[in-house]
């Protein structure tokens, strides 16, 4: 089976981000990593490949040139092939999904496509659903268990308050991975050495038929959350200070 993983490069969760020009973030001094939810997607794809003889995993990434370091990491973890849709343009999830769909469609025999349920930078939570729509195939998201039986995919998805839903999908289909699905492996040194030699297929948005990167969606403004006011210490005798705290919670904070 030709297994696909759509992977995005995002700022490290520990990076401190600042807004540059009201529309984007300062990229200097940011460490870029694979989107954590996509790591679960890669791991599950590799596990499926290891179980199904004759399978191969292809990593597909849309992003600027710097994304290549994350693609290499995906290859070092064990993927066989990589496609890099290279663009410096700001591109929204709808166009992203269309570009990914058109790239994957170049392979007539694509099977299961894994993605993280969301990218932690923009949290749009839509790419995998839109991708399913463009490809006309089923999708399930928030997946915590995956198995491939015969020609069907069986997944468990977490729904409200820890309840689980078990569903079956035909292949090809889309799996939106979340935490708990697996423990992503570390890239081994042998994997890193092997990954160095794998050619990455480069595509442009134009080659994939994407003329308008916004497709009806235009970001207007990006802004940082307002600074939190400093904490307050209520002084005085215990009984008085508790009363004062309750009053403040009721009247100022309005949480009681």
């Amino acid at each position, binding site marked *: 089976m030709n297994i696909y993983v759509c992977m995005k490069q995002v700022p490290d969760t520990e990076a401190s981000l600042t807004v540059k020009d009201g529309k984007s973030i300062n990229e200097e001094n940011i460490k870029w990593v694979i989107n954590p939810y996509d790591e679960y997607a890669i791991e599950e794809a590799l596990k499926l490949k290891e179980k199904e003889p004759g399978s191969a995993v292809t990593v597909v990434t849309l992003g600027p040139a710097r994304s290549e*370091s994350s693609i290499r*990491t995906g290859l*070092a973890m064990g993927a066989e092939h990589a496609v890099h849709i290279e663009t410096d343009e700001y591109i929204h999830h709808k166009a992203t999904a269309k570009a990914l769909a058109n790239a994957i469609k170049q392979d007539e025999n694509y099977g299961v496509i894994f993605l993280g349920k969301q990218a932690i930078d923009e949290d749009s939570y839509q790419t995998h659903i839109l991708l399913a729509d463009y490809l006309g195939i089923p999708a399930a998201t928030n997946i915590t268990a995956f198995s491939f039986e015969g020609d069907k995919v069986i997944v468990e998805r977490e729904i409200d308050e820890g309840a689980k839903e078990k569903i079956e999908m035909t292949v090809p289909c889309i799996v939106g991975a979340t935490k708990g699905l697996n423990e992503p492996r*570390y890239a081994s*040194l042998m994997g890193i050495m092997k*990954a*160095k030699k794998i050619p990455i297929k480069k595509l442009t948005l134009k080659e994939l038929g994407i003329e308008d990167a916004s497709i009806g969606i235009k970001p207007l403004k990006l802004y940082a959350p307002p600074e939190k006011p400093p904490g307050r210490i209520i002084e005085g005798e215990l009984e008085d200070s508790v009363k004062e705290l309750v009053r403040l919670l009721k009247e100022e904070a309005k949480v009681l």
Partner: protein
Amino acid sequence: MSLNYDLPEDANMIRDSIRDFAENVIKPQARELDAKEKFSPEITKQMGELGLFGFAVPGEYGGNGFGYLPYMVAVEELARIDSSQAATVAAHNSLGIGPIYYFGNEEQKKKYLPPLCSGEKVWGFGLTEPDAGSDAGGTKTNAVKDGNEWVINGAKMFITNASTEYSLGSTVQAVTGKRPDGKKEYSCFLVERGTKGFETKTMHEKMVWRASITSELFFDDCRVPEESILGKQGEGFRQMLTTLDRGRLSIAAMGLGCAQGAFEMAVKYAKERKQFGKSISTFQINAFKLADMDTEIECARNLLYKAAWLCDQGRDYQKHASMAKLYCAEVAHRCVNHAVQLHGGYGLMKEYDVERFYRDQKILEIGEGTSEICRLVISRCIGCYDV
């Protein structure tokens, strides 16, 4: 004309991967393994799967053939989190696998290297004796030829990785006679655990590297076949010195990682800790300490990478290896000292990892050539005594 200080992309990838592994897998266990003085075969095996054993060894013997620069980066990242695990990797690569790969014959390499490179088994390096430390020429362990066998008698101590069920054996230096010039002749032997007359004992109550194995070896009429000799008879002393030169690079990497880890803890704590109404990092005496630490670590890293680069280029690296080992160990000494000082009373408690770093640092100025021996090597290279 330009100098490139960027590491190759694959070295950066190795750093990222080992850093993730060290932070997520080793860090949560490090304090408990240290407290219980417990070696972890599970972590060792995982480190083997990551490819941390056999940096200089080509794939046909189970190694990864990456060379010394990536090896330094990997050890540095392990030591940034925990010296014990870094010690297991450094000792096993440089002292366990090294001599077999560099001096062993084809049969020995085929037999021992694959299980050692996979991390399933480890191998010791028996040089130090109760009465022979810096003066390796004082070795008393001897081997006498008897027919097709060698009979070994003597004892070794402070040998890393030699005494658990995961230890496959040890390389042992022994006196095998007298050279024509009257000096002792040394040879090395590969002795498997379980050989009759060869006993090992794990040394306990250590101050440092408590989650790595340190062993005593005892040889009592231990008979090994003629083929157990490493290289040729009489090459033992040179083999040991060459091994130590390379080993010094990995101890230097441990010093660098230890210093880096202590520095990061110190910065974080100093910014969080408030006294007299402000972060103690804003007091100039503390800020300058941190500035000094950062500067010294930068120097240490550049020196070590240069030494490793010389080694990878096949150029003479002996002096630089000693310089790097000396300097990185002493930078680590100063950094853990400052880091504990910045932590105040908390730095003396096991609840803070900096306490462990403070203890673990000390061996770096003693093992694989004391700071004094390193200065001796460097001063010899300068030609100080050729007058």
